[in-house]
């Protein structure tokens, strides 16, 4: 007898005629039914995409102890900090999987090496945006896209769900964590000169959102719809008490225009028994009409309200209208006329305006877990950049751009007024050293700190609070702002040189006035100058320079110092040098060194002087 | 052929699957859980008189309709001794209701009539069944008895009593002894010293220089009955064990072991205490090496202690006995 020893692998495909249901039932006793499963083998995907960046940031701060009186600096005048407490990690990996053309998954993973010197190196790992799932479904009457899972960057309409993009009047000297490397190291400044804007990453103008987003596009008659339900970073947290944000948009597009209906609703409960509602509504219509005669009308009009067990003041109006005139033979320069009015009853910190009227919402609505970074906004009567709106305010904004041969000038002017007299406080910033001052406090957003407990830290900035004690009572204040941005391009030794000047001239006074009040009758005067210089020493090396100067003065009826008896009289200076070095393709090294000197001539403890040095290495892949 | 295989398989399976229902059931009977409670036969002892000293035992019978929790309480009519036997069954018999003369609560049973009561720990009845049994001789305990004070004072003992107030040290016969008739009383007020009085039980009382005990101190248990006075809960007793390591007939504290077992009396009434000899700690810094040599025990001393500020103190002892293998089962 021939004995053939045959070995076989038991991963034999099932006999096709057996259906799945009967397999588990009628073949129950079939002896060969047992063994290891699965019986058939499935191949996986061969390709996944991995991209990301590596960013090393080190910061050394050295303050002069003889003149720095901030309590946070007591006895600790020199500080080394490895990393960036602005939330972004050291190594960030974006992993993407696309099983088919209709679905994809992405997740990010970050690693951070704290370099504490410990033998067990303290690595921190985690996700930043989380696991994101995408799906697309195409039909004859439209394409439906779904996003769910982790954090998505989303925009609906400016008043309902978007981030303020402003008028691109900012200094480029200090890099943001999300700033990309450019092909040539100098392109960042060149783009800013040419376009008036930087190439920003996906989050520009958008807000972070977690939940379900459904977009429908290519609908009949050029309609498009989007819907979202979930949480923004303002109502995030893992509390089991429901706290959700729901919004939607229906847009009808025309050849040169569009009109849309938008809504956003936020609701949570103030008690564990989930009976007392807290939240807000905002419903708007957004439209844009481009005429053939070089003007564009854009606007968003709506109504909103806030509700809580203790607050129900009804609905309020919100307007934001812009009329843009392009350059034409009738007017030689583009002009934007903008009118806005947002009722104190309308709140929505997910939009492009801040809530400065309802204190309890500012404090209580966020239900974030410890360890999460809340996003705070200045409260009270805020001095803001032109374009940054707040509620309880209405005003007129004029913007224009003037282009000359090698110089571009943008000028903005704003005259605004509060609607209701609510607050006897003013908040304002210190542009020259704002980022550096915010780094005095790491890993948190403390309020009422500083030598006079009137400094509040927000994301990469601070604002200061000033009290008003007007014998005529609280007024609906007037706000005037003039901003000038001037960008000049030239050459020295055949090398490009850019000069960017940014000036801001602001006043806050008791009543509305179309023209600014630059004297002590104003509650507050704020003048700031920032001058950036960028010189392309070589194709790989750019020398950067910065000079900043602030003057901020408190006027009549503002708080005085007990010792000096004087109002706030603040003067801030900042001088910085830096180098941008392109080490390799997609690899940039950025060095900055800054000298800071700040003094309030009447508030003796409000004083600091020192230096900050940062080294940033950023590599994209 | 194929059909034959087919038929064979069918038949073999059918035949082998013919199982008769079991003639017993799993778990307790449902009647025991849900049925009515009935007493089928009264409570009876297996004998009227029992001689525990000669090794006799007595058991009790009773038939019930269902499994219940029950309690059998045997009470000495003279001594007041109690023996509690509990169980869960529907039948009381030799297996579950056997009495070997031991006691649950002191005192120990004497020659006396004992009342036996059977009660049921169930809501279904509050019936109590009764019977009785006469103890002709109580249970004898195996072991080395140092004393039970029944023979009175032994001249080989020695004693020391402080000259305090109301001192009352001596053998008592007042019907309250936990074992037989006599016990040793220790009472008085000493306001300058912890020691109120002590008694030494010397090995010479047995005509030897050491007590006839096993040398395996891991297997040797010291037992005593100790009285706690509910009115004077401030007594302590120190049992001290002195070993004559060199067998010269005398204990030398400087180079021979003395072990001490101290108890704080925080109970009322008589209580049986027991300790393994090898667990008793050294009382003289292991001057003799610290090794327990129970076979060289020369003297057992009982010291009555009380805080001098606490006033009058009262305790008593009875039935000092060494047992092997296990503590005394009184």
């Amino acid at each position, binding site marked *: 007898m021939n004995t053939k020893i*045959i070995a076989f*692998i038991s991963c*034999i495909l099932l006999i096709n005629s057996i259906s799945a249901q009967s397999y588990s039932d009628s073949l129950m006793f079939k002896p060969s039914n*047992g063994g290891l499963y699965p019986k058939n083998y499935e191949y996986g995907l061969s390709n996944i995409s991995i991209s990301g960046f590596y960013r090393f940031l080190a910061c050394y701060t050295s303050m002069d102890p003889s003149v720095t009186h901030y309590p946070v600096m007591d006895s600790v005048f020199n500080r080394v900090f490895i990393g960036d407490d602005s939330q972004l990690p050291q190594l960030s990996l974006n992993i993407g999987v696309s099983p088919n053309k209709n679905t994809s998954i992405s997740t990010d993973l970050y690693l951070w090496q704290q370099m504490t010197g410990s033998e067990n190196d303290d690595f921190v790992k985690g996700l930043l945006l989380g696991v994101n799932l995408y799906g697309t479904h195409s039909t004859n009457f439209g394409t439906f896209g779904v996003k*769910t899972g982790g954090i998505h960057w989303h925009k609906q309409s400016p008043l309902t769900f978007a981030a303020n993009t402003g008028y691109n009047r900012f200094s480029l000297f200090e890099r943001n964590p999300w700033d990309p490397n450019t092909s040539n190291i100098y392109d960042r400044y060149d783009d800013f000169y040419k376009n008036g804007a930087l190439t920003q990453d996906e989050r520009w103008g958008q807000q972070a959102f977690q939940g379900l987003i459904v977009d429908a596009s290519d609908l009949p008659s050029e309609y498009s719809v989007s819907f979202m339900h979930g949480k923004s970073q303002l109502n995030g947290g893992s509390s089991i008490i429901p706290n959700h944000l729901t919004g939607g948009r229906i847009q009808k597009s025309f050849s040169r225009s569009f009109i849309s209906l938008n809504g956003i609703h936020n609701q949570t409960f103030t008690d564990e028994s989930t009976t007392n509602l807290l939240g807000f509504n905002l419903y708007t219509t957004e439209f844009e009409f481009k005429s053939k005669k070089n003007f564009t009308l854009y606007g968003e009009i709506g109504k909103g309200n806030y509700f809580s067990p203790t607050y129900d003041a009804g609905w309020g109006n919100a307007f934001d209208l812009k009329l843009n005139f392009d350059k034409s033979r009738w007017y030689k320069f583009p002009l934007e006329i903008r009118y806005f009015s947002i009722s104190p009853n309308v709140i929505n910190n997910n939009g492009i305006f801040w809530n400065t009227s309802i204190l309890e919402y500012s404090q209580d609505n966020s239900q974030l877990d410890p360890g999460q970074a809340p996003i705070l906004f200045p409260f009270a009567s805020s001095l803001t950049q032109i374009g940054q709106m707040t509620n309880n305010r209405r005003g007129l904004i004029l913007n224009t751009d003037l282009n000359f041969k090698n110089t571009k000038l943008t000028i903005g002017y704003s005259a605004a007024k509060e609607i209701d007299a609510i607050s006897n406080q003013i908040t304002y910033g210190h542009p020259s050293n704002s980022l550096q001052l915010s780094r005095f406090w790491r890993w948190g957003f403390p309020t009422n700190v500083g030598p006079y407990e009137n400094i509040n830290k927000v994301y990469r900035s601070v604002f200061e609070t000033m009290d008003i004690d007007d014998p005529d009572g609280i007024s609906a204040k007037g706000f005037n702002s003039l901003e000038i941005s001037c960008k000049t391009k030239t050459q020295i030794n055949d090398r490009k040189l850019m000069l960017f000047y940014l000036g801001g001239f602001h006043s806050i006074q008791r009543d509305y006035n179309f023209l600014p009040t630059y004297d002590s009758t104003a509650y507050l005067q704020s003048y700031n100058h920032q001058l950036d210089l960028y010189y392309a020493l070589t194709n790989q090396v750019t020398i950067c320079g910065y000079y900043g100067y602030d003057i901020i003065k408190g006027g009549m009826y503002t708080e005085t110092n007990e010792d000096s008896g004087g109002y706030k009289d603040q003067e801030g200076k900042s001088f910085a040098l830096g180098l941008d070095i392109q080490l390799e393709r997609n690899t940039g090294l950025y060095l900055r060194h800054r000298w800071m000197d700040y003094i309030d001539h009447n508030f003796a403890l409000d004083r600091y002087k020192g230096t900050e040095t940062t080294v940033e290495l950023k590599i994209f892949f | 052929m194929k059909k034959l295989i087919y038929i064979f398989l069918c038949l073999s399976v059918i035949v082998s*699957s013919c199982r008769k229902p079991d003639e017993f*059931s799993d*778990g307790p009977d449902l009647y025991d859980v*849900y049925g009515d409670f009935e007493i089928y036969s009264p409570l009876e002892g297996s004998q009227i008189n029992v001689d525990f000293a000669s090794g006799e035992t007595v058991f009790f019978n009773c038939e019930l309709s269902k499994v219940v929790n029950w309690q059998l309480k045997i009470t000495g009519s003279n001594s007041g001794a109690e023996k509690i036997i509990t169980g869960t069954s529907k039948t009381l018999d030799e297996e579950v209701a056997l009495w070997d003369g031991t006691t649950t609560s002191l005192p120990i049973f004497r020659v006396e009539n004992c009342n036996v009561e059977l009660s049921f720990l169930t809501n279904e009845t509050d019936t109590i069944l009764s019977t009785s049994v006469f103890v002709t001789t109580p249970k004898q305990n195996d072991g080395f008895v140092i004393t039970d004070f029944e023979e009175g004072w032994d001249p080989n003992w020695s004693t020391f009593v402080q000259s305090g107030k109301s001192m009352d040290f001596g053998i008592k016969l007042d019907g309250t002894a936990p074992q037989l008739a006599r016990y040793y009383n220790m009472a008085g007020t000493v306001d300058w010293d912890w020691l109120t009085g002590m008694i030494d039980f010397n090995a010479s009382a047995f005509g030897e220089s050491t007590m006839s005990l096993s040398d395996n101190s891991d297997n040797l248990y010291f037992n005593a009955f100790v009285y706690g006075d509910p009115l004077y809960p401030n007594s302590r007793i120190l049992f001290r064990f002195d070993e004559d390591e060199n067998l010269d007939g005398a204990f030398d504290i400087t180079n021979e072991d003395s072990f001490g077992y101290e108890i704080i009396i925080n109970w009322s009434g008589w209580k049986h205490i027991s300790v393994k000899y090898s667990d008793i700690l050294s009382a003289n810094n292991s001057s003799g090496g610290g090794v327990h040599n129970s076979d060289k025990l020369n003297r057992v001393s009982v010291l009555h202690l009380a805080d001098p500020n606490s006033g009058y103190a009262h305790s008593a002892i009875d039935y000092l006995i060494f047992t092997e293998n296990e503590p005394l089962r009184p």
Partner: protein
Amino acid sequence: MRCFLIILFSVFSSGFAFSQNGKKVQFVGGARSLNTLAELDSASTPKRSGGYALLDLGIKINPNSNTEVMGMFRINNEYGGFWGAGVNIDVRQLYVRGVANDIFRYQVGNIDYKLTPYTFYNHNQDILTSSIGTLGIREDVFNYETFYSDNTWRQQGASLNFGLELPKVIKDIEVNSFISRLNRSDFNFVLDRFFGGGNVVINKDDNLEIGLNHVSIFDLAGTAKTDNIYNNNVSSITFDYQLAKNNFVYGIDGEYGVSSLSQSESPEDSLTDYFVHARSYINFDSGLELSFGILDNGADYRSFGAQSRRVSFNQENNFFNRYMDLTNSTEVLRPISLFDMYNDPQLYNQGISVGLMDHNPIISSVLPYGIASFNRQGGYFGVIYDDPKEFFDLNGRVYLLSESRGQGTLALKSFLMSELVATLHANKLWKGKKEFNIQLSHNHQQTTRNGEFDFESVDFTTNQLNIGMEYEVFEDVYLMGNYLKLSASGNDQMPIRNSEDEIINYENFLVDGHESLISSGIKMSFSKKSYLAIVHDRYQYRFSQITHEYDFNQSSVVYVLKF
């Protein structure tokens, strides 16, 4: 004699290899996102929201064409956790598998395994009705979470198999073996416990297959400070003999074996018994299948590889686990309901458990451990109809069983159970291209016992009805609806067991009520393996004899993607 090796791969493909096109790395896995908003009327916090998004990323590495190493990790971020908060990274599974010397197939690590219904099998006995629609989605989720498919159990161990061919005597012999670890020694009084076994499958010819099976749960002596060795052995013979005629196939299959359970320090408590199960069937080419079976599982038959349950009812719920008893304003534990079983994958076990697990008589009282339930004997009749035109499918079975040994009485319980699944593909009626499926699934169980005394009487009936519907309104967009009702009435004497599984008492289980679920939703399929579903559930609990009644409403959005 000449001996030579021949390697036989798949019947349908040659040159099988773990890796394709020489690629050394492949990726498998899935992702899921779930967001819920739930309301339970009498909870202290009645409205609750939650959710998560997770990615299971498995990396298959093929160092050569015959070997594969697979590690899968899970990234889970909690709903509401921003910028890295609420993130967990865990390992989900790890194994290596391959073919050694082109002969032995092995797998080490996580393995999904089964043998026979009486030795090692996952009967999934608490999901008694078949589901499409919203409940089908939930089944999809909890089966994925617990690695359940094809009645297997997930184990941590190793398996090995190979085959032999003796062509002049029999067709071939397949040998399967496995060993897994059930618990680890604590170096004190818990011994290392293993579960091992295997089978030899003899294919006599195309008509007859015989299997010799053996499994054993055993403690490894010397691994702890105890000599109390636990042992549960089951040996059986399985057979499948079929003959083909012109337009039908008929045959007989079944299993016959013995089991033993013992602990070395209490040999008097050992249990030994036998079991028999035989089924004759006839399958017509028209799609009709008839079967008739008998079974006799001894009262002392124990086989924990086959008698383990996926859900233990002796655990607490993971959400809304307490709610108010309004009669006395106290918080009580909310027992696990049928809706919880569909809603919460964490209630499910992945591997086997040693010892009899608690079951819910409302859900399964006749065969609480599947057909491997001990103390059952009787017969059953089954009908399957698989329409060749795919218009209508039917699967039904009726069991008539009884105990072989009474519990607390010599009177025996009688059992009647009927199961029915009927599926209608209604679009076939009008030859529509868009799917319209309706499925009705029903399970009826009845337990009765008459005895000398009233307290011996048992009359307990439970019905479970599951109606599901899927209607394709647009291409790949489905409307779904489900109605699930579980009702029970009557009384049963439920045994209360101690830790040794001995009956020590009884509970008079008395109920008259129901649970009902109405569920509706919409599903958008992006591909065969991915979809988004929005579901709304309205659930009512009305077993007031057990605990306070409540209503539970839930809206959820679930996105499932597999690759």
